[in-house]
């Protein structure tokens, strides 16, 4: 029988190193995906990922009744929003990410395309447009959209993560979708 999140966290509290590793592996992909969509940059997302699990480790004893997943995403959201705010304030430019422009991404996509380079190029450009559209959303709206749409959390779970009411989540979601309906590209059939 698979260990539950709670049992793993309990084991971690008792000093079982493997329990924490299992939690990281269990939610790692989903969390990194969330953070990447939140900040649009893998390097930054990995930093946030580390910071999130660092806080999980440090605050494991504070988790009471709530679901681990919601709690994890709550921490991640705080880390991401704080980090993005700081990044905006500092205007940090990624120096290791050589290609950081839309053209560059497209160029890479073209180079990687196994077939139909022209279609791949258009697709890459559309992906970039989607990414930029999502990136342009306010932090709370973006978090709501990513959690509800990409992470498939229910609105109730999103409300738990964002520590707000379901009504607020729906409002944020609607606003995000309304904005996106004007900014998303028309995709290829």
């Amino acid at each position, binding site marked *: 029988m698979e260990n539950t999140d709670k049992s793993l966290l309990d084991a971690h509290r008792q000093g079982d*190193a493997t329990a*924490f*590793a299992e939690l*990281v*592996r269990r939610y*790692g*992909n989903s969390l*990194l*995906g969330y953070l*990447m*969509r939140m900040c649009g940059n893998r390097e930054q997302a*990995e*930093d946030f*990922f*580390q*910071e999130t*699990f*660092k806080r999980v*480790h*440090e605050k494991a004893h504070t988790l009471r009744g709530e679901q681990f997943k919601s709690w994890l995403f709550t921490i991640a959201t705080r880390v991401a929003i704080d*980090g993005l705010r*700081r*990044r905006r304030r*500092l205007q*940090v430019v990624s*120096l*290791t990410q050589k290609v950081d422009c839309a053209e560059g991404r497209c160029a890479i996509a073209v180079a990687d395309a196994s077939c139909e380079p022209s279609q791949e190029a258009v*697709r890459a450009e*559309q*992906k970039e*447009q*989607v*990414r930029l559209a*999502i990136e342009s959303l306010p932090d709370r709206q973006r978090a709501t959209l990513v959690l*509800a*749409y*990409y992470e498939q959390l229910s*609105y109730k779970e999103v409300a738990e993560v964002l520590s707000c009411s379901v009504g607020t989540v*729906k409002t944020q*979601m*609607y606003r995000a*979708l*309304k904005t*996106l*309906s004007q900014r*998303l*590209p*028309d*995709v290829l059939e």
Partner: protein
Amino acid sequence: MKGHLTNKELIEYQFKLASDVQMKGVAEHLEGCAKCREHLEQLKRKFSALDLLREDVEVSEDLISQVIEQAGQPVQPKILSIWRTRWARAAAAVLMVGLMFLFVRLSGEGRRYEPVQKTDKVIVKKPLGPARDRPAERLLVAQANEEKAELEEEFEQPSGHGVLASAEPGPAEPGPPFAPASAIELVVLPRRDKVQLTIYNSADLTLVRERRNLTLKKGWNWLQFMWANTLIDPTSLNLEPLEKADNIDIQQLVFPARLRELGRWLIRSEVSGQVPFEITYFTSGLSWRAFYMGTLSQDEKKMYLQGYVRVGNSSGEDYEKAQTRLIVGKVHLLDEIAELARRQYPYGSPWPIAHGGRYDYSGRMAGDEISLDELNLGWSGVNGFFQEEGKLRRREIIKEGLSEYFLYTIEGTDTIADKWGKRLLSFEAEDVNVTSLYKYDEERWGNQTVRFVSFANDEDHNLGETPIPNGNVKIYSQADEPVSPSASRCGQGYLSYVGGTGIKYIPVNEEIELNLGPARLVKVEPKSMDFKTDNYMFDHKGNISGWDEIRTWQIEIANTRELPIEIEITRGFDTAYWTLQADIPYEKHDVTHARFKLNLEPRSKQEFGYTVTTYHGVREEVIP
């Protein structure tokens, strides 16, 4: 439901944002309304673009290992988190004052006045987040000023300017402690006492030397240095005690794993108390450039020349009250400092740091070597230069030769904040004799006359103290009578812009010619008056084997200026085989060119003619 569904209703329906009742109503409407169904399909297609980003993201094993390893570190208990809040600190301060008052009253000493001894703050740092997330001003932990100290717990302690926290306070341990992996119980550095910048203009390189007073404890001490968001080269960091060196040993500089953009020095001290230290490192992002302003006299025979330097800072770090020194000369570097500074981890340094902390350049300098000793970087002469016998005077830039380089030291100190620039006067020379010369050379400048001003960097020209670094020069001319003699001297007469150009490094006793661009008031007009061929030669088959071409030119020069001018006209013949008959003297400039020099009176015209014969084929042999 009346009419058609709105966008809002459709979005809410599609993403289940509406209430159950509304959802049901919309579903019923859609069943009977093809237009709304079509509209909904359009919306679905639009939002399907979101799925382009629905790709699987996989966490790398490295990242998982790092996270797990990070979790392996013991959780640091929070230290005095109550001090985070302002009210708690305020309450504590009131309590402290009250207790002190009581103590003084009870001890009976309170009636006698005693000066209050100033105490310095000791700041105990909390665990920090990743260094890269911290602002640039956190470069050194100790730079935390009082505003920023809100994140920190503060205590009052009658100590020196800063505290170097022991890894394990108490008696000296026999062996060094393990390098802490997280930012705990580390050094708090005080503000810089002095800082000296030596900026090279040929490379993006600055040597920073800063002096700070640290308070050491007997035993092992850790000192943390952060360079997040700056362009400091971590491989160049060096720390040295300026006093009590026999009792203090800088054991190692550690770059802790998993922590970025910070390094920690392990210091073994046999003494406790305040010790001045010097930290040196290279940084990128500081630069300086020279530029010049020349004002020609009305007769254009003299020039008032002012040299300036502009120091700019984009290094990410503020340097307050820094003594600034500028190096003129080319430095050969194997690495770009900016690249080193931006590396994720400083390991694998290509610059070995020699034992004792002094830099060993021998491996990286090809031919041109500079060492710190050679730079003679003394601290003397930093302060108190600006007031002499109660009179303020302009600061000077002191220049001195240095091997292949030249060192300019800006007098006094300057605060060079990040993203700021500062312009300083480097030198000024009055009555520099200059020569104005107009040149006409179609091959180089087309049919425009170009104006030049030349002078020499020597004593005869009131210059020659130092080489003149490369930079831009702008030349102005006094266009009208000055308002007053003093205004004239100060260059406050009516000025007109004559032209500008870039100059290269001018060594002492070398001449410099400034190209001020096209001169519209001096016209040169060559006219072709005649062309003929002559002296045909034939080979044994009757083919042409040689001939002469004879061209006659008339050159008209018009000087519409109010001043006499000297002009140099260069004519090219496209062959080395030519002879010339001219109305005026000429000089053979090179194998294919002849040069005429003329002097023209104000508002005058002059003409001269010449006939050039060029020899081709076997006729070339005519030329001896």
